[in-house]
Protein backbone atom coordinates (compact mmCIF):
# COMPACT_ATOMS: atom_id res chain seq x y z
CA UNK A 1 0.00 0.00 0.00
CA UNK A 2 2.95 2.27 0.47
CA UNK A 3 3.29 2.39 -3.29
CA UNK A 4 0.04 4.26 -3.68
CA UNK A 5 0.99 7.85 -3.02
CA UNK A 6 1.08 7.18 0.68
CA UNK A 7 1.99 10.74 1.54
CA UNK A 8 1.11 10.82 5.18
CA UNK A 9 3.12 7.81 6.18
CA UNK A 10 6.05 9.03 4.15
CA UNK A 11 5.77 12.38 5.79
CA UNK A 12 5.81 10.78 9.17
CA UNK A 13 8.92 8.77 8.45
CA UNK A 14 10.56 11.86 7.02
CA UNK A 15 9.67 14.01 9.98
CA UNK A 16 11.03 11.35 12.27
CA UNK A 17 14.28 11.57 10.39
CA UNK A 18 14.21 15.34 10.63
CA UNK A 19 13.54 15.08 14.33
CA UNK A 20 16.43 12.75 14.78
CA UNK A 21 18.68 15.35 13.25
CA UNK A 22 17.51 18.03 15.68
CA UNK A 23 17.39 16.01 18.86
CA UNK A 24 19.75 13.17 18.49
CA UNK A 25 19.91 12.10 22.09
CA UNK A 26 16.70 13.58 23.44
CA UNK A 27 14.32 10.91 22.28
CA UNK A 28 10.93 11.15 23.96
CA UNK A 29 8.72 8.21 24.72
CA UNK A 30 5.25 8.05 23.26
CA UNK A 31 1.92 8.69 24.91
CA UNK A 32 -1.22 6.65 24.43
CA UNK A 33 -4.28 8.83 24.28
CA UNK A 34 -7.87 7.71 24.32
CA UNK A 35 -10.03 10.01 22.26
CA UNK A 36 -13.53 9.00 23.15
CA UNK A 37 -15.87 7.31 23.97
CA UNK A 38 -16.81 10.51 25.78
CA UNK A 39 -15.07 13.26 23.94
CA UNK A 40 -16.51 16.41 22.38
CA UNK A 41 -15.01 15.67 18.99
CA UNK A 42 -16.54 12.26 18.41
CA UNK A 43 -20.16 13.44 18.70
CA UNK A 44 -21.17 10.03 19.90
CA UNK A 45 -19.51 7.12 21.56
CA UNK A 46 -16.63 6.36 19.27
CA UNK A 47 -13.29 5.59 20.82
CA UNK A 48 -10.06 6.25 19.05
CA UNK A 49 -6.95 4.92 20.66
CA UNK A 50 -4.04 6.98 19.47
CA UNK A 51 -0.37 6.66 20.24
CA UNK A 52 1.24 10.05 20.13
CA UNK A 53 4.76 11.29 19.72
CA UNK A 54 4.59 14.88 20.89
CA UNK A 55 1.57 16.07 18.97
CA UNK A 56 1.96 13.64 16.10
CA UNK A 57 -0.02 10.46 15.78
CA UNK A 58 2.06 7.32 15.32
CA UNK A 59 -0.62 4.69 15.43
CA UNK A 60 -4.39 4.71 15.62
CA UNK A 61 -7.06 2.15 16.30
CA UNK A 62 -10.73 3.06 16.15
CA UNK A 63 -12.85 1.08 18.53
CA UNK A 64 -16.57 1.12 17.91
CA UNK A 65 -19.55 -0.78 19.22
CA UNK A 66 -20.31 1.32 22.29
CA UNK A 67 -23.74 1.96 20.86
CA UNK A 68 -24.46 -1.38 19.23
CA UNK A 69 -28.17 -2.02 19.30
CA UNK A 70 -28.34 -5.23 17.30
CA UNK A 71 -30.72 -4.07 14.58
CA UNK A 72 -29.83 -6.92 12.24
CA UNK A 73 -30.92 -9.40 14.87
CA UNK A 74 -33.95 -7.37 15.93
CA UNK A 75 -35.33 -7.35 12.40
CA UNK A 76 -35.70 -11.14 12.60
CA UNK A 77 -38.37 -10.86 15.26
CA UNK A 78 -40.33 -8.04 13.57
CA UNK A 79 -42.80 -8.12 10.73
CA UNK A 80 -41.89 -6.32 7.54
CA UNK A 81 -43.92 -3.15 8.22
CA UNK A 82 -42.42 -2.97 11.71
CA UNK A 83 -38.84 -2.97 10.49
CA UNK A 84 -39.01 0.61 9.21
CA UNK A 85 -39.41 1.85 12.77
CA UNK A 86 -36.10 0.17 13.60
CA UNK A 87 -34.00 1.17 10.65
CA UNK A 88 -35.13 4.75 11.08
CA UNK A 89 -32.69 4.99 13.92
CA UNK A 90 -29.58 3.90 12.09
CA UNK A 91 -28.57 7.25 10.66
CA UNK A 92 -30.72 9.38 12.89
CA UNK A 93 -30.17 12.62 11.05
CA UNK A 94 -31.48 11.33 7.75
CA UNK A 95 -34.04 8.84 8.95
CA UNK A 96 -36.33 8.64 5.96
CA UNK A 97 -33.43 7.72 3.72
CA UNK A 98 -32.86 4.63 5.88
CA UNK A 99 -36.37 3.34 5.29
CA UNK A 100 -36.32 3.56 1.53
CA UNK A 101 -33.81 0.82 0.61
CA UNK A 102 -35.43 -1.68 2.96
CA UNK A 103 -38.90 -1.02 1.59
CA UNK A 104 -37.54 -1.23 -1.94
CA UNK A 105 -35.95 -4.58 -1.14
CA UNK A 106 -39.22 -5.91 0.24
CA UNK A 107 -41.11 -4.61 -2.79
CA UNK A 108 -38.54 -6.23 -5.06
CA UNK A 109 -39.14 -9.58 -3.35
CA UNK A 110 -42.90 -9.18 -3.63
CA UNK A 111 -42.66 -8.08 -7.23
CA UNK A 112 -44.65 -4.86 -6.75
CA UNK A 113 -43.82 -1.25 -7.40
CA UNK A 114 -45.10 1.92 -5.78
CA UNK A 115 -47.25 4.26 -7.89
CA UNK A 116 -45.53 7.11 -9.70
CA UNK A 117 -46.70 9.78 -7.27
CA UNK A 118 -45.44 7.76 -4.34
CA UNK A 119 -42.08 7.39 -6.06
CA UNK A 120 -41.88 11.13 -6.49
CA UNK A 121 -42.77 11.85 -2.89
CA UNK A 122 -40.31 9.23 -1.71
CA UNK A 123 -37.57 10.89 -3.69
CA UNK A 124 -38.50 14.33 -2.37
CA UNK A 125 -38.47 13.13 1.23
CA UNK A 126 -35.26 11.24 0.59
CA UNK A 127 -33.56 14.39 -0.65
CA UNK A 128 -35.06 16.44 2.18
CA UNK A 129 -33.53 14.10 4.70
CA UNK A 130 -30.24 14.42 2.85
CA UNK A 131 -30.47 18.20 3.11
CA UNK A 132 -31.35 18.02 6.81
CA UNK A 133 -28.46 15.68 7.42
CA UNK A 134 -25.73 17.35 5.40
CA UNK A 135 -26.65 20.92 6.32
CA UNK A 136 -26.08 19.99 9.94
CA UNK A 137 -22.73 18.55 8.90
CA UNK A 138 -21.79 21.86 7.33
CA UNK A 139 -22.51 23.66 10.56
CA UNK A 140 -20.89 21.06 12.76
CA UNK A 141 -17.75 21.31 10.68
CA UNK A 142 -17.26 24.82 12.01
CA UNK A 143 -17.68 23.69 15.59
CA UNK A 144 -15.07 21.01 15.16
CA UNK A 145 -12.65 23.63 13.92
CA UNK A 146 -13.50 26.06 16.69
CA UNK A 147 -15.94 28.39 14.94
CA UNK A 148 -19.18 28.11 16.80
CA UNK A 149 -21.51 30.30 14.77
CA UNK A 150 -22.13 28.13 11.66
CA UNK A 151 -23.77 25.37 13.65
CA UNK A 152 -26.46 27.72 14.90
CA UNK A 153 -27.15 28.83 11.36
CA UNK A 154 -27.36 25.18 10.41
CA UNK A 155 -29.80 24.45 13.20
CA UNK A 156 -31.88 27.45 12.19
CA UNK A 157 -32.22 26.40 8.57
CA UNK A 158 -32.46 22.68 9.21
CA UNK A 159 -35.51 23.53 11.27
CA UNK A 160 -37.38 24.53 8.09
CA UNK A 161 -36.58 21.18 6.52
CA UNK A 162 -37.61 19.28 9.62
CA UNK A 163 -40.85 21.24 9.65
CA UNK A 164 -41.46 20.11 6.09
CA UNK A 165 -40.77 16.49 6.97
CA UNK A 166 -43.04 16.83 9.97
CA UNK A 167 -45.75 18.40 7.84
CA UNK A 168 -45.74 15.51 5.43
CA UNK A 169 -45.09 12.59 7.74
CA UNK A 170 -45.95 13.68 11.27
CA UNK A 171 -42.50 12.89 12.63
CA UNK A 172 -39.56 15.23 12.68
CA UNK A 173 -36.77 12.78 13.26
CA UNK A 174 -38.27 9.37 12.72
CA UNK A 175 -40.97 9.69 10.07
CA UNK A 176 -41.76 5.96 9.72
CA UNK A 177 -43.75 6.98 6.67
CA UNK A 178 -42.69 4.54 4.01
CA UNK A 179 -44.90 1.54 3.42
CA UNK A 180 -44.50 -1.51 1.26
CA UNK A 181 -46.26 -0.59 -1.93
CA UNK A 182 -46.33 3.16 -1.41
CA UNK A 183 -46.66 5.70 1.35
CA UNK A 184 -48.81 6.09 4.42
CA UNK A 185 -50.46 9.29 3.27
CA UNK A 186 -50.57 11.84 0.54
CA UNK A 187 -48.99 15.24 0.97
CA UNK A 188 -50.94 17.86 2.90
CA UNK A 189 -52.33 20.90 1.08
CA UNK A 190 -49.92 23.77 0.56
CA UNK A 191 -46.91 21.59 1.27
CA UNK A 192 -45.44 21.93 -2.21
CA UNK A 193 -45.44 25.75 -2.13
CA UNK A 194 -43.87 25.71 1.30
CA UNK A 195 -41.18 23.38 -0.01
CA UNK A 196 -40.28 25.80 -2.78
CA UNK A 197 -39.66 28.67 -0.33
CA UNK A 198 -37.69 26.45 2.01
CA UNK A 199 -35.43 25.30 -0.81
CA UNK A 200 -34.61 28.93 -1.56
CA UNK A 201 -33.75 29.45 2.10
CA UNK A 202 -31.49 26.43 2.09
CA UNK A 203 -29.63 27.68 -0.95
CA UNK A 204 -29.09 30.98 0.82
CA UNK A 205 -27.81 29.00 3.79
CA UNK A 206 -25.32 27.27 1.51
CA UNK A 207 -24.11 30.63 0.25
CA UNK A 208 -23.75 31.87 3.80
CA UNK A 209 -21.77 28.85 4.87
CA UNK A 210 -19.57 29.15 1.81
CA UNK A 211 -18.86 32.78 2.67
CA UNK A 212 -18.42 32.36 6.39
CA UNK A 213 -16.58 29.08 6.56
CA UNK A 214 -15.27 27.89 3.23
CA UNK A 215 -13.93 31.29 2.32
CA UNK A 216 -12.15 31.66 5.64
CA UNK A 217 -8.39 31.52 5.31
CA UNK A 218 -7.90 29.70 8.58
CA UNK A 219 -10.48 27.12 7.57
CA UNK A 220 -8.76 26.56 4.26
CA UNK A 221 -5.33 26.24 5.78
CA UNK A 222 -6.67 23.74 8.25
CA UNK A 223 -8.46 21.55 5.74
CA UNK A 224 -6.57 21.80 2.48
CA UNK A 225 -4.01 19.04 2.11
CA UNK A 226 -5.09 17.47 5.39
CA UNK A 227 -6.19 13.85 5.43
CA UNK A 228 -5.64 13.14 1.76
CA UNK A 229 -7.24 9.93 0.54
CA UNK A 230 -5.98 8.95 -2.89
CA UNK A 231 -8.46 7.46 -5.32
CA UNK A 232 -7.16 3.91 -5.15
CA UNK A 233 -6.98 3.85 -1.37
CA UNK A 234 -10.54 5.12 -1.14
CA UNK A 235 -11.72 2.36 -3.43
CA UNK A 236 -9.73 -0.29 -1.57
CA UNK A 237 -11.26 0.65 1.74
CA UNK A 238 -14.75 0.49 0.31
CA UNK A 239 -15.57 4.09 0.93
CA UNK A 240 -18.71 5.53 -0.52
CA UNK A 241 -20.72 8.67 -0.84
CA UNK A 242 -19.21 12.10 -0.76
CA UNK A 243 -15.97 10.77 0.72
CA UNK A 244 -15.41 8.73 -2.41
CA UNK A 245 -16.49 11.50 -4.78
CA UNK A 246 -14.09 13.87 -3.07
CA UNK A 247 -11.29 11.51 -4.05
CA UNK A 248 -12.18 11.97 -7.67
CA UNK A 249 -14.30 8.87 -8.23
CA UNK A 250 -17.39 9.71 -10.24
CA UNK A 251 -19.77 7.37 -8.51
CA UNK A 252 -23.30 8.01 -7.38
CA UNK A 253 -25.87 5.28 -6.91
CA UNK A 254 -28.72 7.67 -7.58
CA UNK A 255 -27.50 8.01 -11.14
CA UNK A 256 -25.71 4.70 -11.65
CA UNK A 257 -28.47 2.24 -10.89
CA UNK A 258 -32.11 2.23 -11.88
CA UNK A 259 -34.47 2.04 -8.96
CA UNK A 260 -38.19 2.80 -8.87
CA UNK A 261 -37.37 6.33 -7.71
CA UNK A 262 -37.56 9.66 -9.48
CA UNK A 263 -33.91 10.69 -9.72
CA UNK A 264 -33.65 9.81 -13.40
CA UNK A 265 -36.55 12.12 -14.18
CA UNK A 266 -34.80 15.34 -13.20
CA UNK A 267 -31.71 17.20 -14.25
CA UNK A 268 -28.89 17.26 -11.73
CA UNK A 269 -25.15 16.81 -11.52
CA UNK A 270 -22.79 14.57 -9.58
CA UNK A 271 -20.00 16.66 -8.08
CA UNK A 272 -16.51 15.31 -7.67
CA UNK A 273 -13.28 16.86 -6.48
CA UNK A 274 -9.83 15.71 -7.50
CA UNK A 275 -7.99 16.57 -4.26
CA UNK A 276 -9.30 13.98 -1.83
CA UNK A 277 -8.45 16.12 1.20
CA UNK A 278 -10.69 17.32 4.00
CA UNK A 279 -11.61 20.46 2.12
CA UNK A 280 -12.68 18.43 -0.90
CA UNK A 281 -14.96 16.29 1.22
CA UNK A 282 -16.60 19.33 2.77
CA UNK A 283 -16.88 21.10 -0.55
CA UNK A 284 -18.48 18.12 -2.29
CA UNK A 285 -21.07 17.92 0.48
CA UNK A 286 -21.82 21.60 0.17
CA UNK A 287 -22.43 21.18 -3.55
CA UNK A 288 -24.60 18.17 -2.89
CA UNK A 289 -26.91 20.14 -0.66
CA UNK A 290 -27.32 22.65 -3.46
CA UNK A 291 -27.91 19.85 -5.95
CA UNK A 292 -30.49 18.29 -3.65
CA UNK A 293 -32.43 21.53 -3.39
CA UNK A 294 -32.52 21.61 -7.19
CA UNK A 295 -33.73 18.01 -7.35
CA UNK A 296 -36.49 18.74 -4.86
CA UNK A 297 -37.59 21.86 -6.69
CA UNK A 298 -37.84 20.05 -10.01
CA UNK A 299 -39.70 17.12 -8.50
CA UNK A 300 -42.12 19.46 -6.76
CA UNK A 301 -42.86 21.08 -10.11
CA UNK A 302 -43.37 17.80 -11.98
CA UNK A 303 -45.10 15.71 -9.35
CA UNK A 304 -47.81 13.58 -11.02
CA UNK A 305 -51.30 13.07 -9.68
CA UNK A 306 -52.59 9.70 -8.67
CA UNK A 307 -52.72 7.31 -5.75
CA UNK A 308 -49.83 6.92 -3.28
CA UNK A 309 -50.46 3.26 -2.51
CA UNK A 310 -50.81 0.18 -4.67
CA UNK A 311 -52.88 -2.77 -3.74
CA UNK A 312 -51.12 -4.86 -1.16
CA UNK A 313 -52.59 -7.57 1.06
CA UNK A 314 -53.59 -6.53 4.57
CA UNK A 315 -51.17 -9.02 6.10
CA UNK A 316 -47.94 -8.82 4.23
CA UNK A 317 -46.12 -12.05 3.57
CA UNK A 318 -43.03 -11.77 1.44
CA UNK A 319 -42.36 -14.71 -0.87
CA UNK A 320 -39.23 -16.78 -0.47
CA UNK A 321 -36.11 -15.25 -1.93
CA UNK A 322 -33.21 -12.89 -1.45
CA UNK A 323 -32.83 -9.28 -2.49
CA UNK A 324 -30.15 -6.62 -2.24
CA UNK A 325 -31.07 -2.97 -2.64
CA UNK A 326 -28.77 -0.09 -1.92
CA UNK A 327 -29.22 3.63 -2.29
CA UNK A 328 -27.05 6.72 -2.13
CA UNK A 329 -27.79 7.87 1.39
CA UNK A 330 -26.57 11.15 2.92
CA UNK A 331 -23.57 9.35 4.37
CA UNK A 332 -22.86 7.08 1.43
CA UNK A 333 -23.97 3.72 0.17
CA UNK A 334 -26.59 2.13 2.34
CA UNK A 335 -28.02 -1.24 1.51
CA UNK A 336 -30.10 -4.08 2.87
CA UNK A 337 -29.66 -7.70 1.98
CA UNK A 338 -33.00 -9.24 2.84
CA UNK A 339 -33.44 -13.00 3.03
CA UNK A 340 -37.05 -14.14 3.18
CA UNK A 341 -38.46 -17.59 3.83
CA UNK A 342 -42.02 -16.62 3.16
CA UNK A 343 -42.81 -15.54 6.71
CA UNK A 344 -44.30 -12.39 8.18
CA UNK A 345 -40.83 -11.11 8.96
CA UNK A 346 -37.44 -11.41 7.30
CA UNK A 347 -35.32 -14.46 8.02
CA UNK A 348 -32.09 -12.46 7.98
CA UNK A 349 -31.21 -8.88 7.13
CA UNK A 350 -27.70 -7.68 6.51
CA UNK A 351 -27.39 -3.91 6.84
CA UNK A 352 -24.59 -2.23 4.99
CA UNK A 353 -24.24 1.21 6.46
CA UNK A 354 -21.97 3.82 4.97
CA UNK A 355 -20.25 5.16 8.08
CA UNK A 356 -18.91 1.80 9.17
CA UNK A 357 -16.97 1.39 5.96
CA UNK A 358 -15.98 5.03 5.81
CA UNK A 359 -14.59 4.77 9.32
CA UNK A 360 -12.45 1.76 8.50
CA UNK A 361 -9.94 3.97 6.75
CA UNK A 362 -9.01 5.89 9.92
CA UNK A 363 -6.03 3.71 10.97
CA UNK A 364 -4.49 4.40 7.61
CA UNK A 365 -5.58 7.99 7.35
CA UNK A 366 -4.71 9.26 10.80
CA UNK A 367 -1.20 7.91 10.84
CA UNK A 368 1.28 10.77 10.86
CA UNK A 369 -1.18 13.63 11.39
CA UNK A 370 -1.30 16.04 14.33
CA UNK A 371 -3.74 15.92 17.20
CA UNK A 372 -5.79 18.89 15.92
CA UNK A 373 -5.99 17.24 12.50
CA UNK A 374 -7.59 14.15 13.98
CA UNK A 375 -10.58 16.33 14.69
CA UNK A 376 -10.60 17.93 11.24
CA UNK A 377 -10.31 14.60 9.47
CA UNK A 378 -12.93 12.84 11.56
CA UNK A 379 -15.30 15.75 11.04
CA UNK A 380 -14.72 15.77 7.29
CA UNK A 381 -15.18 12.00 6.99
CA UNK A 382 -18.58 12.62 8.54
CA UNK A 383 -19.89 9.61 10.31
CA UNK A 384 -22.90 9.16 12.52
CA UNK A 385 -22.44 6.85 15.42
CA UNK A 386 -25.75 5.11 14.91
CA UNK A 387 -24.66 4.41 11.40
CA UNK A 388 -21.40 2.82 12.57
CA UNK A 389 -22.75 0.77 15.43
CA UNK A 390 -26.26 -0.06 14.19
Amino acid at each position, binding site marked *: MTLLGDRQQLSYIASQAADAR*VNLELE*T*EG*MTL*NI*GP*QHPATHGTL*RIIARLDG*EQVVWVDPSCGYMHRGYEKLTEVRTYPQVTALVNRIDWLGSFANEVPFILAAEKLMGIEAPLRAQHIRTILFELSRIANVSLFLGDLGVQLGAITPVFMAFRDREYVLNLIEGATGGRFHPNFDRIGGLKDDLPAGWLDETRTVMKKLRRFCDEIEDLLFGNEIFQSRTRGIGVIPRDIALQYGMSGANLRASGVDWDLRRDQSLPMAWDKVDWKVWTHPDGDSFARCWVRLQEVRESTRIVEQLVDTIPAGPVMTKVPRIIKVPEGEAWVCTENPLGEMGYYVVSQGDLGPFRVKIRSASFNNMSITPWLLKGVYVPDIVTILASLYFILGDIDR
Partner: protein
Amino acid sequence: MSEFLRSYLVVVWFGLAAFLVGSLLLGISALLRPNNPTSEKLLSYESGVDPVGDGWSQSQIRYYVFALLFVIFDVEAVFIFPWATQLERYGGFGLVEMAVFVAVLVLGLVYAWRKGVLRWV
Protein backbone atom coordinates in the same frame (compact mmCIF):
# COMPACT_ATOMS: atom_id res chain seq x y z
CA MET B 1 11.55 55.33 51.05
CA SER B 2 10.66 57.12 47.88
CA GLU B 3 7.56 57.56 45.78
CA PHE B 4 9.20 55.04 43.44
CA LEU B 5 8.91 52.16 45.86
CA ARG B 6 5.67 53.36 47.35
CA SER B 7 3.74 52.63 44.17
CA TYR B 8 5.01 49.08 44.24
CA LEU B 9 3.93 48.68 47.79
CA VAL B 10 0.39 49.51 46.76
CA VAL B 11 0.66 46.80 44.15
CA VAL B 12 1.82 44.35 46.79
CA TRP B 13 -1.17 45.26 48.94
CA PHE B 14 -3.39 44.79 45.96
CA GLY B 15 -1.90 41.40 45.16
CA LEU B 16 -2.34 40.41 48.76
CA ALA B 17 -5.98 41.51 48.60
CA ALA B 18 -6.50 39.40 45.47
CA PHE B 19 -4.89 36.42 47.18
CA LEU B 20 -7.05 36.90 50.25
CA VAL B 21 -10.23 37.20 48.23
CA GLY B 22 -9.28 34.06 46.32
CA SER B 23 -8.71 32.10 49.53
CA LEU B 24 -11.84 33.58 51.06
CA LEU B 25 -13.91 32.38 48.12
CA LEU B 26 -12.35 28.93 48.32
CA GLY B 27 -12.84 28.90 52.07
CA ILE B 28 -16.53 29.76 51.86
CA SER B 29 -16.94 27.19 49.15
CA ALA B 30 -15.17 24.58 51.31
CA LEU B 31 -17.76 25.16 54.03
CA LEU B 32 -20.71 24.99 51.68
CA ARG B 33 -19.91 22.28 49.18
CA PRO B 34 -20.48 18.58 49.71
CA ASN B 35 -17.45 16.36 50.00
CA ASN B 36 -18.01 12.79 49.05
CA PRO B 37 -15.06 11.51 47.07
CA THR B 38 -15.14 8.01 45.68
CA SER B 39 -12.32 6.28 43.89
CA GLU B 40 -14.21 6.54 40.61
CA LYS B 41 -14.58 10.28 40.93
CA LEU B 42 -10.91 10.75 41.65
CA LEU B 43 -9.78 9.02 38.48
CA SER B 44 -8.24 11.40 36.02
CA TYR B 45 -10.26 12.08 32.90
CA GLU B 46 -9.56 10.17 29.76
CA SER B 47 -12.71 10.31 27.68
CA GLY B 48 -14.67 7.96 29.83
CA VAL B 49 -12.26 5.02 29.97
CA ASP B 50 -9.74 4.09 32.64
CA PRO B 51 -6.55 6.06 32.09
CA VAL B 52 -3.78 4.25 30.30
CA GLY B 53 -0.23 4.63 31.50
CA ASP B 54 1.21 7.49 33.48
CA GLY B 55 -0.32 10.96 33.32
CA TRP B 56 3.11 12.52 33.21
CA SER B 57 4.41 11.18 29.98
CA GLN B 58 7.35 12.94 28.42
CA SER B 59 6.55 15.83 26.19
CA GLN B 60 8.27 16.86 23.02
CA ILE B 61 11.65 18.56 23.16
CA ARG B 62 10.31 21.13 20.73
CA TYR B 63 8.40 23.00 23.40
CA TYR B 64 11.65 23.41 25.26
CA VAL B 65 13.46 24.75 22.20
CA PHE B 66 10.84 27.45 21.87
CA ALA B 67 11.26 28.35 25.51
CA LEU B 68 15.01 28.76 24.97
CA LEU B 69 14.44 30.96 21.94
CA PHE B 70 12.04 33.05 23.96
CA VAL B 71 14.62 33.68 26.63
CA ILE B 72 16.86 35.23 23.99
CA PHE B 73 14.15 37.54 22.78
CA ASP B 74 13.08 38.45 26.26
CA VAL B 75 16.62 39.40 27.20
CA GLU B 76 16.64 41.49 24.08
CA ALA B 77 13.60 43.36 25.37
CA VAL B 78 15.53 44.16 28.53
CA PHE B 79 18.07 46.01 26.39
CA ILE B 80 15.62 47.59 24.03
CA PHE B 81 13.27 49.19 26.54
CA PRO B 82 15.79 51.41 28.35
CA TRP B 83 17.25 52.48 25.04
CA ALA B 84 13.82 53.27 23.64
CA THR B 85 13.05 55.65 26.52
CA GLN B 86 16.36 57.48 26.08
CA LEU B 87 16.38 57.52 22.30
CA GLU B 88 17.25 61.21 21.90
CA ARG B 89 20.11 61.02 24.34
CA TYR B 90 22.10 58.44 22.41
CA GLY B 91 21.18 59.69 18.96
CA GLY B 92 22.79 58.19 15.89
CA PHE B 93 25.40 56.26 17.83
CA GLY B 94 22.74 54.48 19.85
CA LEU B 95 20.76 53.73 16.74
CA VAL B 96 23.71 52.06 15.04
CA GLU B 97 24.54 50.14 18.18
CA MET B 98 20.97 48.92 18.47
CA ALA B 99 20.84 48.05 14.79
CA VAL B 100 23.93 45.88 15.22
CA PHE B 101 22.38 44.26 18.28
CA VAL B 102 19.12 43.53 16.48
CA ALA B 103 21.02 42.27 13.45
CA VAL B 104 22.83 39.73 15.63
CA LEU B 105 19.47 38.65 17.03
CA VAL B 106 17.95 38.34 13.58
CA LEU B 107 20.91 36.26 12.54
CA GLY B 108 20.16 33.99 15.46
CA LEU B 109 16.56 33.71 14.34
CA VAL B 110 17.71 32.99 10.79
CA TYR B 111 20.00 30.29 12.09
CA ALA B 112 17.23 28.69 14.12
CA TRP B 113 14.93 28.90 11.14
CA ARG B 114 17.42 27.34 8.78
CA LYS B 115 18.11 24.62 11.27
CA GLY B 116 14.45 23.73 11.12
CA VAL B 117 13.82 24.36 14.80
CA LEU B 118 10.94 26.70 14.11
CA ARG B 119 9.13 24.01 12.23
CA TRP B 120 6.46 22.50 14.37
CA VAL B 121 6.38 18.79 13.74
